[in-house]
């Protein structure tokens, strides 16, 4: 029993560690500033974290398969532009949103198709589709932002649902759905097995390529959903929206304990990491640290966290090898 509890704790060690850091950061910041622990500020942090959570869920799946998706930032822009163009040419809000989500999902599915059909490194494939997607977004708009939408659309970015807002609800829903799919469905199981030993999964009779295509499709879908939030929040669809978002999403996923070598990862880790990054950014601002230094500090924190997680993992492995 104690042994099982111990192994369980080890399984969730990165999440527990990250959670403790988050709590420590919150306690420290609330002591330093009276403005930190107010509902207004917390709501602000949650609101700022929603984009990263939504994209991070899809990215977690992809990284679990030992893959990567660099095209998510460009998909954020393209899906927003598809929605904007559709609405400005007379389509209703609902269908326009669906069209934008579909566009993002298709880019994701294409990523998966090219990666599995030609067996090319995901880094290179999604680097290519990132540029293609961004290019399409620029061509469609001529480089000019599209703005001015109905309130039925902007509600998705800045509406109110009681004390929270629609992006928070979307992020929560996506995180819960992602956790269920990763832990309690065949697809999630296969995502982890794809990263752990793709050949073994294939030899067990599983259609590995099909599953990979679906997983990249999910990542495209969540990026498109982030595109909806960005576009609705700013009331503007910009061809350069979501610039470098892919790097934030990857950093959050890895900070959350998902292994870039694939095979292990968790949605809860990703969510905690997104919140931690949100709290840190907010805290650094409250402590009036200039934004250039914030950039530096966040980068250092990510590096240190990843090094600690790698060392911890290696220690565990070494201990196990000695035990056998």
């Amino acid at each position: 029993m104690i042994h099982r509890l111990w192994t369980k704790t080890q399984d969730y060690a990165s999440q527990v560690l990250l959670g403790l850091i988050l709590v420590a950061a919150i306690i420290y910041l609330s002591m330093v500033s009276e403005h930190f622990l107010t509902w207004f500020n917390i709501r602000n942090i949650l609101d700022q974290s929603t984009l990263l959570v939504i994209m991070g869920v899809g990215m977690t799946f992809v990284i679990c398969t030992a893959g990567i998706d660099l095209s998510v930032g460009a998909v954020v822009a393209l899906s927003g532009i598809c929605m904007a163009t559709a609405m400005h040419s007379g389509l209703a809000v609902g269908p326009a949103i669906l069209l934008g989500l579909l566009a993002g999902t298709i880019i994701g599915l294409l990523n998966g198709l090219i990666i599995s059909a030609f067996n090319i490194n995901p880094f290179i494939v999604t680097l290519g589709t990132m540029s293609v997607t961004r290019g399409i977004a620029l061509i469609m708009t001529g480089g000019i932002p599209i703005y001015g939408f109905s309130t039925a659309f902007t509600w998705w970015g800045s509406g109110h649902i009681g004390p929270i807002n629609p992006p928070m609800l979307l992020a929560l829903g996506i995180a819960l759905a992602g956790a269920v799919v990763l832990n309690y469905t065949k697809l999630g199981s296969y995502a982890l097995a794809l990263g752990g030993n793709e050949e073994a999964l294939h030899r067990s009779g599983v259609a590995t390529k099909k599953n990979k295509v679906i997983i990249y499709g999910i990542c495209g879908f969540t990026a498109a959903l982030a595109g909806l939030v960005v576009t609705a929040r700013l009331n503007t669809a910009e061809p350069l929206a979501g610039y470098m978002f892919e790097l934030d999403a990857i950093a959050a996923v890895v900070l959350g304990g998902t292994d870039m070598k694939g095979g292990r990862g968790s949605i809860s880790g990703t969510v905690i990491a997104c919140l931690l990054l949100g709290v840190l950014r907010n805290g650094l601002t409250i402590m009036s640290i200039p934004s250039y230094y914030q950039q530096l500090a966040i980068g250092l924190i990510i590096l240190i966290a990843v090094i600690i997680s790698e060392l911890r993992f290696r220690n565990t492995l070494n201990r196990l090898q000695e035990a056998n």
Partner: protein
Amino acid sequence: MTDSDHKPIIRLRNITKNYGNIRALQNVDLDIYMSQVLAVVGDNGAGKSTLIKVLSGAIKPSQGEIEVAGKVYTGLNPALAISLGISTVYQDLALVDTRDVAANLFLGRELVKFGWWLDKKLMLEKSKQLLRNLNVNIVDPQRMVSQLSGGQRQGIAVARAVNQGGKVIIFDEPTAAMGVNESRQILNLIKDLAEQGYAVIVVSHNLHHVLEISQRICVMKQGRLVANLETAQSSPSEIAHYITGVNNLEDDQEIAQ
């Protein structure tokens, strides 16, 4: 003996596999029977692995037919082979180290309720049962495969093959990386499986092991099946003769005298 004992479960007919100009398999005919251990022996590059890959569905033959339970196929894939009841315990074991024992045992045939929700509790219970039945010494099916010893890992690979529900189990070099005790365990397991009615195919370099556990021995050389012997009526030197092409029969007679 029942009728099914006489009829082969798998018949390979004229199987040929070319890799460019290299003929990895040439016109191989082979029958595989239930409740028997068939050993496939031969030197490196003799075509043993290629033959196993044809049976497990890893590769499709260039020519020839595979007849399984009366149905004829020109080639299999892993999913088809498993659904036809042919499971393989690979030399590298093909386990997902980052997942637990139960997830590996049910890899590709996960149990679900409501049509999609993984029934982890049921899989854990069945895993325990399965491992107990096969005498695999693993206390907790929730342990990561990376935490287990070589013998335990092999036990999981065998248990997974059994769990796939087939009638034919292929072992690719099962004792190659094993210590003495672990080899003993796996050899006993193979004998048990044949006694329980499975058709077992074992590819091995170890003639002693092969002689101990098999009923028939096939010798491969340069892509051809050069001998198909009853184990009870053959000697190590006769088999070595077929493997190497060197005539050792006289030595054998001297030893016998």
